[in-house]
């Protein structure tokens, strides 16, 4: 009996689908859309079928180190056959130490059928595998992927929740904001970071409103991350953030403002930086 033959039977279906009416049950096991035709400007060596088959064999082998490297190599190849080899390996089951890099590799060149395979792994008993699956899902716009990421925010393991929070930020998953607020309420740093990444001026106002509802340190951390975002602005919006931090009594507030001052050049002068300096001086100088 060969893997290929088995995969050709019903196993592919069950492996890619979750079986009993799960959201992925109807997902087609088709291939990625063909890449847009590239202009043949530079000649690159295109790996042959043999090389890919070699990686696939290594991926399914007992040498987990070689299998993990094969997963990386397959992920680096923007070829449907390489992608299929990864899907195939994941469908047939991989040891945890191989599954995590294979999941990461799969998302390097994302394709719609990947979502079902990734979702199958977000419930894995190994938390590194779950974290890798969630991180990978950030790349996909599929609502099922977003739902899985949000579900990951409820995970019992902090490492997995952290991965889900990062995925929510990376995938700009707005529906994750509410559970992220709940995690912020529990003082979780990855949630602070994710909310900061997602924040626009409206969300900043909502975050600032959390004063007294969430731990001061986590709130200061979150607002501090917003200030450090290069893409956040204009400066009047940053001033609002600085003022929100100023209301926080926890030493983390001073740390956040100090960090902001440190990473922001003096010139051209920014009113938000000046405001932060005045606040830090006032706080540290005892208000003199």
């Amino acid at each position, binding site marked *: 009996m060969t893997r290929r033959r*088995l995969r050709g039977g019903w196993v592919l*279906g*069950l*492996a890619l689908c*979750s*079986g009993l009416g*799960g959201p992925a049950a109807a997902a087609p096991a088709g291939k990625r859309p063909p890449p847009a035709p590239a202009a043949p400007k530079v000649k690159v060596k295109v790996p042959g079928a043999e090389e890919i088959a070699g990686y696939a064999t290594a991926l399914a082998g007992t040498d987990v180190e070689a299998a993990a490297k094969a997963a990386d190599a397959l992920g680096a190849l923007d070829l449907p056959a390489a992608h299929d080899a990864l899907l195939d390996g994941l469908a047939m089951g991989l040891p945890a130490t191989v599954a995590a890099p294979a999941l990461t590799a799969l998302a390097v060149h994302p394709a719609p059928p990947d979502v079902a395979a990734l979702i199958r792994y977000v419930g894995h008993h190994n938390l590194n595998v779950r974290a890798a699956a969630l991180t990978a899902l950030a790349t996909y716009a599929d609502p099922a992927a977003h739902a899985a990421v949000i579900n990951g925010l*409820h995970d*019992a393991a902090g490492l997995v929740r952290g991965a889900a929070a990062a995925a929510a930020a990376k995938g700009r998953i707005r529906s994750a904001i509410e559970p992220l607020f709940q995690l912020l309420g529990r003082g979780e740093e990855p949630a602070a970071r994710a909310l900061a990444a997602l924040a626009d001026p409206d969300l900043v106002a909502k975050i600032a409103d959390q004063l007294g509802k969430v731990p001061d340190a986590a709130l200061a951390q979150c607002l501090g991350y917003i200030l450090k975002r290069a893409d956040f602005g204009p400066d009047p919006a940053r001033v609002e953030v600085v003022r929100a931090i100023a209301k926080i009594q926890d030493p983390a507030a001073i740390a956040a403002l100090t960090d902001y001052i440190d990473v922001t050049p003096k010139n051209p002068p920014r009113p938000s930086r000046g405001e932060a300096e005045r606040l830090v001086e006032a706080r540290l100088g005892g208000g003199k």
Partner: protein
Amino acid sequence: MSRVGARVIVCAALVVAVGGCHHPVFGLTTSNDNDATALASALSRRQLPESPMPLGATHQPRAYVAVQGGARAIVAFELAAGKPAWRVDADVQSRIAVGGDFIVELEGKQLVARDQARGAVRWKLAGAGTLIGTAADRDRAYAVWHDGSHYEIAAYDGASGGKLWAADAEGALGAPAAQGGLVYVPFFAQWLSILDGKTGAPLARLRGIDEQISMLHTTSQAAYFGSKQGVFRLDARSASGTRAGGTYAQLKIPPQLDRTSYGVDSYDPVQLAYTAADRARVLLRSEATDAAGPMRLAGDGYAIHYFRYVFGFGAGGELRWAYSHPRVELVSTEHTGYVIVGVAANGDVVALEPQTGAVRFRGSLGTGADHVLGATFDADGWSPSSQSEPIETVAALVGITRDHDARFDRVKELAVQALAKLPGAEVTKELLGVLADPRAPQKLKDTVVELLVARKDPSSLPVLTAQLAVHTDYLLRTEPDALGPVAKAIAGLAGAPLDPKQVADALVALQSHLDAPATATPDLVLVIAAMSAIGGGAERSALGSHLLLYHADDDLGNDPSWGPAIVRALDKHGGPGEHELLRYVAEDPRTQPALAAAIRDGLPAR
């Protein structure tokens, strides 16, 4: 006439002649035991009513209740009217015995008789030592006294307190009972002497050959004696002295109600007064019969009062009904022939239908903050006319299971066992509620799990499925409630006629736990078994995916319980595809050795 008969007559004549003298009624050799003729003669002298009725002169059913507020008092409660007749302060130190128009009890150190009309003291006297017990009939009061090694029973005129006669004993006497002109007196835990109440003359004596005689109980028409082991109805057949020859019953008392007794222990000095022993009592009535054979229970059943609860059983010991008194314990109960009447510690009075447990009467002593110590009922034949409340056996059983009083943990086991025998989803829900109760004892939860598994009630499936809706969730702070037991219970439904839609829902719910990272391996094994048990093949793809996902996993793949479970499940409804899958996994070099071995063991070459 027999020699004993002649001796009895002579003795009786002497008693009448000397009035009140002591005579050797009790002794190891002073009576001819188990004389059928003497017994029949004695029983024929009883003056018993045609139908059951209270002994009191007005024949109105009453409860005489000892209460303690600031001081002790007696409340006479008219059951038919549902209100107290009177209340008098009285330092009650014993059970209250009810006579024709008086009651008698120990107050302080004195035997005191009070009239039934108003509770006024009629007479009082100091006895010959320590009181063992009292009894009364229409005209007389009887008391057994103990002083050092000397025991004595004395009879007193109910109207004046004058001593009518007394009899010494060579050994321990128990608390007496009186009925229709006879006095029953236990002797040395082995004998029951039957005396003429008017003269004290010994009429007959029973010797328990294969059972002690330490319990006595009378109604207006019947008398019962026996021990902790069983109960005899006093009749002509009692002369055999044996269980087999007498009208005897040894009822099935559930082990969870192990403090239950058939009546007051006549020899226990503590039970001279009302005690907690009164709260664990068999309540029965039997039919008079001349036929040989065991006691025939009226209504073909009996009841057990056990603290806050009353359980009704069929003659075979099967639970028929349950009653749970709200908040407080019932301190005294009595079977009137038509209802079981009880008084609770807070003064509630309740009457239950013996066949169904339906509440037929509720009342209150109106004693306010008083604490009820105990009660004696003179209510034989009482049948309240008020309408029955609905029968609430399930609610009562549920109430018992949820009772957090640790004293009743074993009773809770009985309740869940009884609940589990009832069909319906609601019952399953209640049983699951026990599992979800963090304060429920573990032993009770173990019992519930066993019962859920054994229950095999198809209508429970939706309830069990609903129970699976809760998952481990960090944000919601939830954990699955009894996932393993629920899965086990679902597996127990294998082969039962199940609704396909409900099965599909259950499979989805089970798969959510199959795929959940937080599902612990022991629970996972049960989830797999449950899916296999009810899936009918629909579970195969999910289980196949699960197998592939973990076959090379260092942890799960090597688990000694998971491997055989998943192999069994896939093999059960598996077709060629599943067997092909199992063989592939067995041959895959990455497959963990324990799993590969499980496949080889579970899937012989075909």
